[in-house]
C-alpha cells in the first residue's frame, strides 16, 4: 500500500480495503525502518498521527469523509504545527513548539489528512542540497553519498523513498522543484499568493510559496486544491477562490504551444539532462503540443538579482530571532547586546549567517540603490521577458536543474557554485509565476527533472500537461533500489 499514489490510497480507503489507522501504522513503520539511511525526517509524530488516523476512521464511519480523509503525509519542518516541534532545520528553533498551526497544516488537517511528522530541510530553507540543516544532511534515495537537493530535501527524499505518498514543501528560489527533480518526484510551486504563508516561517517574503510534493501530477492537483485559496491571515494571500485542479487533468494538449527558451539549453547544461528534456518535448509534441523556440534575454540576471532580494528580505525576517521571545538563548549573556549577538551567532548556522550578512550589507546606508533597488528593477525586466513570451506560448518548458544530483560535500566549500543550481528555477520566483518539476528520465541511476513554467494562475494547465505526459511515460513510477 505504501507504494501506492495518494489517489490510489484514497480509493482503497473509500472502498474500505484498509483503514486510516492501518495505513498510518504501515507508513510509520516504514519511516522507522528506512529513515536511518535517509535522515529525511526530523520529528516523527507517531502519537498525533495515530490519533488523527482514528479520527479519520470515525469521520469515514459517519459518512463525512472527503477525498483526502485518512491519508498520511509529511510536512516540511518550516510549517508551524501546534504541539509538535517546528525546528526549521535550525539550532535556533531546536526547542520551538509553535502555539498555532500554519494555514496549510490546518487546511490539510481539516480535510482529514494525517500528519506523520516533519521533514528535514536546509536551515531556514537556505540551501540547495539539504546540507545546511542542523540535523545533518539527507541522503538521496537513488544513490548513497548524494544530495537530495534543497531546501525541501527531506520532503523530496521521503516521497521518493515511499515514506509517504505526499509531503509539503516551500519554494523561494527552487526549493520544491530542484529537490523534486533530483529525487525523481513531482512538485509544484504555485503563483505567488496562491497558498497562504501564514505559519510558514518566513525566508524571503516576496518570493516564498508553499506547494505539494508528490509522485504524480494527479496527486499534486488533489493536494493543491485543498491547500490553496484566500486566507485573511496572510496579507499577501490573493483574494481568489481555490480551484478544482483535478478537473482539468485530462484536457487535450491539442493546440497547446510550448516555449523552449534558448537560454535554458546553453552552456553548463549536462548532456544527459539536455537529451532527456528534448525527448520529453518530442513526447509532448506527439500528444498534440506545438514547440516553439523563445527567448528570455534577462535570464542570466536571475541568480544575481535573487542573491540580493532573498538575503535582504531574510536579514529583515530573521531579525526576530533575538534570544528573547522564542528559540535559542546563549548562556550567561554579559549584557543585552551580548545576548542578541551570541544567541544569533550560536543559534544560526554558517549559510544563514552568510545570507544575513549579505542582506544587511545590501540594505545598509549608501548601498540600497546599488543593490536592492537595482535588483528590483531587474526583477521587472525578468517578469516582462516572461510576459512577452506568454504572448506567443502557453507554457514554458526546460530542464529544472543544470545537472542531476551531486555528491555530498561537493559544493559546500563554494557557495556560489551551490547557488548556480537554481539558475533555471529562481526566475519563476522573481516573477511570481507558477512552475513545476516532474520526472523526465535518468542519468545513470539519477533522476532528471523537466521544468514547466506557466502564466499567473495557470497551475491547472501545468498539472494538465504533466498528467498527460505521465500517462504515456513511466519515469514517475520508478522506485529507488531498497525502497520497493
Amino acid at each position, binding site marked *: 500500500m505504501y507504494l501506492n499514489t495518494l489517489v490510489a490510497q484514497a480509493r482503497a480507503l473509500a472502498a474500505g480495503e484498509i483503514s486510516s489507522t492501518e495505513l498510518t501504522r504501515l507508513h510509520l513503520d516504514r519511516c522507522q525502518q528506512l529513515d536511518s539511511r535517509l535522515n529525511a525526517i526530523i520529528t516523527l509524530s507517531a502519537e498525533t498521527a495515530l490519533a488523527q488516523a482514528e479520527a479519520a476512521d470515525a469521520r469515514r464511519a459517519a459518512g463525512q469523509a472527503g477525498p483526502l480523509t485518512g491519508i498520511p503525509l509529511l510536512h516540511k519542518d518550516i510549517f508551524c504545527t501546534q504541539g509538535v516541534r517546528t525546528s526549521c532545520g535550525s539550532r535556533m528553533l531546536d526547542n520551538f513548539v509553535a502555539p498555532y498551526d500554519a494555514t496549510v497544516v490546518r487546511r490539510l488537517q481539516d480535510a482529514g489528512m494525517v500528519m506523520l511528522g516533519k521533514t528535514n530541510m536546509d536551515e531556514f530553507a537556505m540551501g540547495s542540497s539539504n546540507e545546511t540543516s542542523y540535523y545533518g544532511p539527507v541522503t538521496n534515495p537513488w544513490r548513497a553519498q548524494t544530495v537530495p537537493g534543497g531546501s525541501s530535501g527531506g520532503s523530496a527524499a521521503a516521497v521518493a523513498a515511499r515514506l509517504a505518498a505526499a509531503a509539503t514543501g516551500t519554494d523561494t528560489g527552487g526549493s520544491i522543484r530542484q529537490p523534486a527533480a533530483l529525487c525523481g518526484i513531482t512538485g509544484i510551486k504555485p503563483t505567488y499568493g496562491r497558498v497562504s504563508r501564514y505559519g510558514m516561517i518566513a525566508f524571503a517574503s516576496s518570493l516564498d510559496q508553499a506547494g505539494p510534493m508528490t509522485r504524480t501530477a494527479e496527486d499534486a492537483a488533489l493536494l493543491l486544491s485543498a491547500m490553496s485559496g484566500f486566507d485573511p491571515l496572510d496579507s499577501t494571500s490573493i483574494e481568489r477562490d481555490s480551484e478544482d485542479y483535478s478537473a482539468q487533468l485530462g484536457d487535450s494538449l491539442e493546440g497547446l504551444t510550448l516555449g523552449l527558451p534558448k537560454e535554458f539549453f546553453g552552456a553548463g547544461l549536462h548532456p544527459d539532462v539536455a537529451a532527456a528534456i528534448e525527448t520529453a518535448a518530442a513526447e509532448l509534441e506527439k500528444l498534440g503540443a506545438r514547440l516553439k523556440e523563445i527567448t528570455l534575454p534577462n535570464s542570466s540576471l536571475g541568480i544575481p538579482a535573487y542573491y540580493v532580494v532573498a538575503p535582504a528580505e531574510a536579514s529583515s525576517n530573521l531579525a526576530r530571532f533575538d534570544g528573547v521571545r522564542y528559540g535559542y538563548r546563549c548562556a550567561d549573556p554579559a549584557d543585552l547586546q551580548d545576548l542578541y549577538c551570541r544567541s*544569533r551567532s550560536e543559534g544560526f548556522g554558517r549559510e544563514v549567517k552568510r545570507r544575513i550578512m549579505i542582506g544587511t550589507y545590501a540594505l545598509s546606508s549608501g548601498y540600497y540603490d546599488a543593490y536592492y533597488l537595482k535588483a528590483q528593477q531587474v526583477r521587472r525586466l525578468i517578469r516582462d521577458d516572461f510576459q512577452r513570451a506568454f504572448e506567443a506560448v502557453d507554457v514554458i518548458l526546460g530542464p529544472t536543474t543544470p545537472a542531476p544530483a551531486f555528491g555530498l560535500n561537493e559544493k559546500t566549500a563554494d557557495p556560489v557554485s551551490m547557488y548556480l543550481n537554481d539558475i533555471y528555477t529562481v526566475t519563476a520566483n522573481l516573477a511570481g509565476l507558477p512552475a513545476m518539476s516532474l520526472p523526465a528520465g535518468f542519468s545513470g541511476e539519477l533522476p532528471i527533472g523537466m521544468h514547466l513554467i506557466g502564466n499567473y494562475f495557470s497551475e491547472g494547465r501545468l498539472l494538465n500537461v504533466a498528467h498527460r505526459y505521465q500517462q504515456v511515460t513511466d519515469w514517475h513510477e520508478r522506485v529507488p533500489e531498497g525502497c520497493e
Partner: protein
Amino acid sequence: MALDKNTVDQIATLARLSVDADDNAAYQDELGQILALVDQLDAAATGDVAPLAHPLELTARLRADEVSETDQRDAFQATAPAVASGYYLVPKVID
C-alpha cells in the same frame, strides 16, 4: 567587490552577529565571492525601469479596524527562554 575587515565588522554589528578574527577573514572571502556574483547586475540596462516589489503589483490589503486577536500571552510565552509575571526577562539595561 572585496570587503575589508572593518566592513565585515560593521555588517556584523548591524546584523547583531558576533564575528571573531578567523570568521572575519572567511567572511571577507565568502561575501566577496557572492558580491562578485551580484555585481553582474551592473551590466543590466535598467535606466528608468520601475522597481518591482510585488510580482502581481498588489498592495497590502486593508482590513476593518476591529479586534480580531484574543489574549494568548501565556501560550506565546510558553516558548520563551525566560519570563516572569508576564514579562520577558533580559540582562539589565538601565542601572
